[in-house]
């Protein structure tokens, strides 16, 4: 691991000021991804700014009836908060589908969004990688790519974003609040992560020196008809091959509103609002769910090891929509898929 200087920030302003003045500085909170990357020399920050003492660890009600989750609220605290469990069980379920109890105790809400891909090549400084070293190439495209993306890829990068939490947040239309050298701004979750395009080294729209202060959940009534269905190579403590977050609002026997986001298939949580509108005003039916799945995957491109994900994603979408419509969300402890 590289040597670095350490600063314990005592205010958001101090953290922002110190980070903005030093391009080689990085914030650290839970550390569960950054320390790992430093141990592999993938990240070599010259300076770490410890933000764990900042007052960003509360979950508060918003004036508009939503919740504001502080950036330092741990994954465990967010998942088990009674308000989150009651009003946003999709978020609770997605968080509990990820990582382990130990990691959820350290990992934070802000850090979860900023974790890097688990692409094997990105993690191995002995190989080229456009995300780690721009311009060196993407060995994943022609190499081992079982865990890689099938949607929104570019010739420069086929990595996925690994978060489960962010997939639920995309479906719930969360907003990321940040503070930077130029003041505060709010970024819709769906605009927070970006597609790789020509700059796969840039994961998010966050600017250097900006710090995530909170994630806001708008008021919503998706507590009955939801599910987070995660499919992976082992039943627990593994990243998604494909995951589906679904939230439905059902009026009578018709779907009044539908939200659907996919994980494990793209460089960001994948939403397709056009596909969601195919459900509006219609009763739940497998034929319609299949049409939605076909629409979402219509531009998917499989690679040598991951072409199976296209069919897997379609089936997962149909199953997840069925679970949500029936009000029988996927259990994260009993792994049988009903």
């Amino acid at each position, binding site marked *: 691991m590289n040597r670095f200087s*350490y600063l314990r920030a005592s205010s958001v302003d101090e953290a922002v000021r110190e980070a903005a003045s030093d391009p080689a500085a990085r914030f650290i909170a839970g550390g569960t991804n950054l*320390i*790992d990357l430093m141990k592999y020399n993938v990240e070599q920050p010259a300076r770490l700014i410890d933000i764990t003492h900042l007052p960003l660890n509360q979950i508060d009600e918003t004036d508009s009836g939503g919740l504001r989750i502080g950036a330092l609220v741990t994954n465990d605290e967010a998942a088990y908060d009674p308000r989150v469990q009651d009003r946003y069980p999709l978020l609770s379920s997605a968080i509990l589908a990820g990582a382990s*109890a130990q990691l959820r*105790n*350290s990992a934070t809400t802000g850090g979860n969004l900023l974790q890097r891909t688990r692409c094997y090549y990105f993690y191995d400084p002995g190989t080229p990688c456009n995300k780690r070293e721009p311009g060196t190439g993407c060995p994943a495209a022609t190499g081992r790519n079982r865990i890689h993306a099938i949607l929104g890829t570019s010739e420069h990068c086929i990595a996925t974003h690994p978060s489960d939490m962010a997939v639920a947040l995309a479906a719930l239309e969360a907003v990321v609040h940040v503070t930077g050298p130029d003041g505060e701004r709010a970024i819709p979750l769906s605009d927070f992560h970006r597609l790789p395009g020509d700059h796969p080294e840039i994961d998010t729209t966050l600017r250097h020196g900006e710090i995530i202060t909170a994630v806001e959940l708008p008021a919503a009534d998706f507590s009955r008809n939801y599910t987070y269905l995660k499919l992976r190579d082992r039943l627990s403590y593994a990243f998604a091959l494909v995951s589906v977050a679904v939230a439905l609002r059902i009026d009578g026997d018709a779907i009044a509103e539908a939200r659907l986001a996919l994980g494990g298939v793209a460089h960001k949580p994948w939403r397709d609002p056009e596909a969601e509108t195919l459900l509006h005003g219609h009763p739940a039916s497998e034929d319609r769910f299949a049409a939605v799945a076909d629409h979402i995957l219509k531009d998917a491109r499989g690679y040598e090891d991951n072409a199976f994900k296209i069919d897997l994603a379609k089936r997962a979408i149909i199953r997840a929509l069925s679970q949500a419509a029936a009000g029988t969300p996927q259990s994260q*402890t009993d792994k049988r898929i009903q």
Partner: protein
Amino acid sequence: MSAGQGGAAALPERIAITLTVNGEARQMDVLPWTVLLDLLRDHLALTGTKKGCDHGQCGACTVIVDGRRINSCMAFAVMKDGANVTTIEGLAKDGVLHPLQQAFIDHDAFQCGYCTPGQICSGVALIEEGRARTRDEIREFMSGNICRCGAYTNIVDAIEQVIGSNEEAAR
């Protein structure tokens, strides 16, 4: 190791921190990049906590910090200043094993033993959390602890025994 080589800004040498480890306050000066796991093993000679993968994937390094189980390999010691740390060495009281330690013996819940300190610290925290009732739930909430020998069935038996006897005692 010298911290200040090269670069215009001299790197700090050491930072004073206080940790309460197994009930005992310990003051020490640490380098910023010293990881909690290495501090426990190399500086405090508490070698019960094991280094398995060193990347947060195996759980052998699990310790309890301020009542919560974490991977000590994924934490800088300097960031835990003021924290209360319990390791496997701190579980027995007055020569009497913690009930989960005894249950591991009763159920032969290990073979090589390398993952065992992490399994037990994780299991102790799991029992405190009080969220696991069924075997499925125990397995899920213990999934952060890998056992290469495959003693999982007996590990779940041991944890189930302690949860059961706690519930009985509470009646």
